[in-house]
């Protein structure tokens, strides 16, 4: 389990439940590495400012990660950690690869989740 204060998606069932619920969600799929830790920090900081958005992490190397986020067509060409995928109404509305700043994350949340 990743050492963050975000909610964890640690099973395919939880992932499917999140998608089916149609909730607004951001899922950061990564490791505890130099490019991922800052993104978890950004999400933790923004959690309170976007109360209608659910913020999750997911272990990149777990079977769940491989069967879900890493299998999405939107992440097929990604090769920079972490993979961050934004969901709304059960659909992927944005996806980014590699480290992101708070401003970059906010821009996506304001554009796609408002």
């Amino acid at each position, binding site marked *: 389990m990743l050492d963050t204060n975000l909610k964890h998606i640690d099973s395919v069932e939880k992932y499917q439940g999140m998608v089916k619920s149609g909730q607004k969600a951001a899922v950061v799929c990564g490791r505890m590495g130099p490019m991922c*830790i800052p993104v978890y920090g950004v999400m933790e900081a923004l959690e309170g400012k976007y109360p209608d958005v659910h913020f999750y992490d997911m272990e990149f190397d777990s079977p769940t990660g491989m069967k879900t986020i890493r299998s999405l067509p939107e992440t097929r060409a*990604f090769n*920079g950690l972490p993979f961050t995928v934004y969901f709304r109404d059960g659909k992927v509305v944005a996806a980014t*690869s*590699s480290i992101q700043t*708070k401003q970059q994350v906010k821009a996506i949340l304001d554009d796609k989740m408002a």
Partner: protein
Amino acid sequence: MPERFDAIVIGAGPAGLTAAIYLARARLKTVVIDNAAVGGQMNLTHEVANYPGVQGISGAGLARVMKNQAVSFGARIIGQADVTSLDPAGPEKTVEVEDEGVFTAPVVILATGGLPRTLGLESEARFKGRGISYCATCDGDFFTGKDIVVVGGGNSALEEAVSLTKYARSVKIIHEFDHFQAHPWAIAEAEKTPQVSFLMNQRVVDFVGKEGLEGVVSVDKTTGASVTVPASGAFLFIGYVPNTSWLKDMVELNERGEIVVDQAMATNVPGVFAAGDARAKRYRQITTAVSDGTIAALAATEYLTTLQRK
């Protein structure tokens, strides 16, 4: 109502956190503000191998220890908070922080660090995370068995090029000069690694590909000849620029945008000090940032004592 502190530190990298440790231990009411993760660029280091007294620790781990140390002495540390305005003039400085309020203090220490230098190409942003990477330890395994490029000629570029040969079939180092800035031992290590080759005196002008990166276009700076190097990945290690553009017109900066300070880390504005990678200096290491932070905090403490005597 503004909240008053003795000292406001802007930047929570090693320089800012060290300053906070010294200031708070001197029982000065101190706040540290950073617009990103606490730890700064230290967080981007997979393993810190040359920090004296600590053997084998991650950058994020070292940042956590420094933060906890500062907090244990009473410093308040706020991460992921943007400074929306700074007024460094006059005896009482004012700092406005998004969602946190207005802080004032007679002392401000600028420890704003650096930002990774980019090539400034549109295609660089397009292929970020789709072939372009800034972290070999994070993303190296995506390029197992593939041909990749490393752009840069300093220690980081050469060391990471060698480490990437664990994964990649070949690593071509593209550098803008005809010689490297790296230490001789790093150059020797790269030269003796068979999978590493070199393309010198080049200017990278474009990254090309469809969904993902397929090639790096560079131009020979002398002949103007263009070459496209086939590559699935490009790792950029081209240094850092000081994070000071927003401080223009507030404190003196040199032609490289670095904050000009004296030996006590004092800027040209009374009560404003600077420390770490944002200031003008030759060597940028965690250890030198820690040294700067120490000096800035001690000088700031002395400045505050002098103010109280007046």
